[in-house]
């Protein structure tokens, strides 16, 4: 593959992700509306407001770009760019079909998790640079939360890697031929659930969206942001969530493998189902408190994932 081809593919992938994410917001609004016995977007583009995401994006684009006078201008403008770029970078290493991946390296899983944890730096910068008390509290919360949840996240990610004996996504997918990792008794399911919980905490989703927490911290780290800069944070959140759903479908649900045929369609279906599950959680749970969140991490998830990883290792060494 030549580098020009690679760049072209990258641009297409970028465009596709942005478009998909835009429409995921529409999906979420419709889904939440059904859950709450409302109708949701309806009038902007019949039927069912299919133009709504475009209208939202346009509205945010033409809004006035405000930088608070007492903020740190450079960092304030850097933060939105940082979160979007770091959240998009992860997609380069994720395989979208059995054979196609933008950057094929044999340490894909490691690289992905390294990139994925960079986003919190952007959130922290945003909270600090805004020079707002709510934003500052939120930034500190985000830092504490993401750093803490990195541990169970990685530990549960390692279980599929141990099963497959590789950090390469392709190998992990190939190893799931016949039995997906979620079907491994106990170990697979625990790893799946802990990963999902930790990913929710990483992605600042309810019930762990403590850094946004609009009932306490108004809007948290993005309280001073408006217009397109705000949209960047929103975009980053959804890209992050999409990446997490995609990762779940690849690591635990067999990725492109499926009954009848194999291919990108299965990846899309599984990712969408995981995404809908996350939405379902979001729109039916209340928010936990920061001390309860930390307690859950250090006293439950971290020991559980450690033991789980040990069991996975034992299982592999006994059967291998």
């Amino acid at each position, binding site marked *: 593959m030549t580098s020009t081809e690679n760049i072209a593919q990258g641009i297409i992938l970028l465009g596709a992700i942005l478009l998909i994410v835009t429409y995921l917001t529409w999906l979420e609004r419709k889904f*939440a509306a059904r*859950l*709450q*016995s*409302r109708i949701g977007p309806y009038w902007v583009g019949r039927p069912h407001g299919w133009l709504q995401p475009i209208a939202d994006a346009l509205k945010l684009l033409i809004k006035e770009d405000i930088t608070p006078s007492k903020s740190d201008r450079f960092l304030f403008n850097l933060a939105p760019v940082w979160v979007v770029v770091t959240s998009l970078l992860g997609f380069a290493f994720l395989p979208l079909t059995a054979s196609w991946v933008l950057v094929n390296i044999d340490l894909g899983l490691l690289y992905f998790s390294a990139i994925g944890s960079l986003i919190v730096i952007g959130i922290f910068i945003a909270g600090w640079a805004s020079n707002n*008390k*709510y934003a500052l*509290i939120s930034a500190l*919360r985000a830092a504490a939360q993401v750093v803490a949840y990195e541990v169970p996240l990685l530990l549960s990610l390692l279980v599929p890697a141990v099963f497959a004996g590789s950090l390469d996504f392709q190998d992990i997918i190939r190893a799931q031929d016949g039995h997906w990792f979620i079907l491994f008794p106990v170990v697979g399911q625990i790893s799946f659930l802990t990963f999902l919980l930790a990913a929710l905490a990483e992605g600042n989703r*309810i*019930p762990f*969206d*403590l850094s*946004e*927490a*609009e*009932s*306490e*911290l*108004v809007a948290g780290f993005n309280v001073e942001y408006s217009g397109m800069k705000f949209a960047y944070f929103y975009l980053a959140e959804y890209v992050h969530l999409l990446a997490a759903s995609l990762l779940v479908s690849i690591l635990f649900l067999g990725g492109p493998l499926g009954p009848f045929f194999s291919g990108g369609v299965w990846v899309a279906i599984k990712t969408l189902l995981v995404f809908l599950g996350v939405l379902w959680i*979001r*729109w*039916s*749970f*209340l*928010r*936990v*408190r*920061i*001390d*309860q969140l930390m307690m859950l991490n250090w006293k439950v998830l971290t020991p559980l994932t450690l033991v789980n990883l040990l069991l996975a290792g034992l299982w592999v060494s006994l059967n291998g």
Partner: protein
Amino acid sequence: MEERVIEREFGEFALNMGPQHPSTHGVFRLELHLRGETVVKVIPHIGYLHRGVEKLSETLDYDILPPVYERDDYLSPTANSLAFVLAVEKLAGIEVPKRASYLRVLVAELQRVTSHLVWLGTFGLDLGGALGGGSTLFLYCFREREKILDLLEALTGTRFHTNMNQIGGVRYDVYASFDGDLSQTIGYLKKRISEYKDMLENNPVFLKRTKGVGVVRPELAKEVGASGPVLRGSGVAYDIRKNKPYSDYTEFEFRIPVGRNGDAYDRYRVRLEEMFESLSIIHQVMEGLPEGPIHSRKPVKIALLLKPPKGEAYAAVESPRGELGVFIVSDGSSKPYRVKVRSPSFSNIALIPYILPGHLIADAVAILGSLDPVFGDVDR
């Protein structure tokens, strides 16, 4: 307003929560002194919604005042006007026909249910945020509330500020098919509210966020003059409807739900049980609605100027938030000489400086929500 730097101890972080904040339930400012995320000191600031209703009353005739009072506590309008008309009736010695009393109870209890539904929904928002599970609860509660508002609209022509209570009686009588509409609504509400009860009481996040949070000891509650579900949540069975009955409440059978620990969860339980009790009272009202006139004074288009004799009177009702009392001094003219409203929310939020310290910011929001303040009622 002059600018003032918040004085604080070294190492403390002063956070102004409000007057514009999503969970201060109106315009209310909490000056939070934080250490980390823990509240060490709190100074509440009120008065942002002061509309001078008491002073305004001195310039208006008695007969046109009940609608003004309905705007006081904007979640339970009839409780306000009921307290006012009861005080005036006591002052002027006006008898109220039985049917009117029953209809007053009917509307008051219907609005108690709407008020508690709004409270439950906004409590969900406090705990879960407007972009999550909390808003689902909020919208469900508002959907059920809408059923009652439809009923009130059919009964009085107004969805919310019903203008039902007049001095000497009520303005509207029930229509022919009201009984059927009402029992249908009651059945629907009972089913739905039980569903939410199951949903919340089996939800580990809800239990974790409310149990043991914002404990109000009964002595403290009495000391600051708290009343209503806040007082009853602490285990004190004090309800004006039972202890100092008005408007024929003695003729209905109902329980007073009380809590045990005085935490946010108990306050939630008390309000939830009260909704069922209110629905039962409404049912009893319709069962035993006596025949007769609904007004003891001659109903006229232009209000006859009511001139109560010199003197003073106090009447209190159990509003959804607690003891709502109106004290009137009359100088014998057609306008009150002085009116003082004893509002339950004002006394209830006096608990805040005592119970917030030691809790986290998230709990501060939950506790404030569990006290159910209405700032129209606090500031008047």
